[in-house]
């Protein structure tokens, strides 16, 4: 969610950085939307498989809640590993 903080922008001047900030803001919005829809998709797929009723059951509801919690804990952990990796390899990736 904050990949922008990971990037090395020291070679840009102030005007370029301001322009990028607007772009980053838009991307963060898109990332949030994708996160939201992707998380719903993931947990819905894993937790809801009974269509004899149109009401979410207690069991499904708990599963969803655990699925979301686990997703964020796993994302946070992988995010830390990712940040550590970026620090050791510099700006990383092909340019």
């Amino acid at each position: 969610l904050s990949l922008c903080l990971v990037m090395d922008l020291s070679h840009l001047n102030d005007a370029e950085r301001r322009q990028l900030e607007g772009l980053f803001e838009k991307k963060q919005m898109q990332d949030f939307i994708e996160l939201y829809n992707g998380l719903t998709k993931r947990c819905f797929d894993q937790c809801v498989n009974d269509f004899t009723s149109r009401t979410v059951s207690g069991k499904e509801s708990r599963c969803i809640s655990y699925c979301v919690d686990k997703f964020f804990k796993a994302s946070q952990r992988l995010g830390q590993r990712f940040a550590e990796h970026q620090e050791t390899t510099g700006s990383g990736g092909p340019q």
Partner: protein
Amino acid sequence: TTHSSMDALSSKQRIMAQEAELDALTGMFNNLLTGCQNKCLSTNHHDGELTKSESVCLDRCAAKYFDIHERIGEKLQDMQKAQMQMNSTMQQ
């Protein structure tokens, strides 16, 4: 409450917010389509009609999807607020 918060935004920001809403709706609808078709439709196509049980399954699947989408949305908004507060604290 949506409209009053919208009034404070510039024209450009309002368009961007509307575009984001369309993207969010499109993404949600596409996931609903894929998810509920995968869960409810037989992949063994004998004809081009929806069976009665497939139709009922789609309706229930949609109802459950909307419910869960909303719950997760509320959870995310709480977390986002918490993160924004943390960010604004860090920027000071």
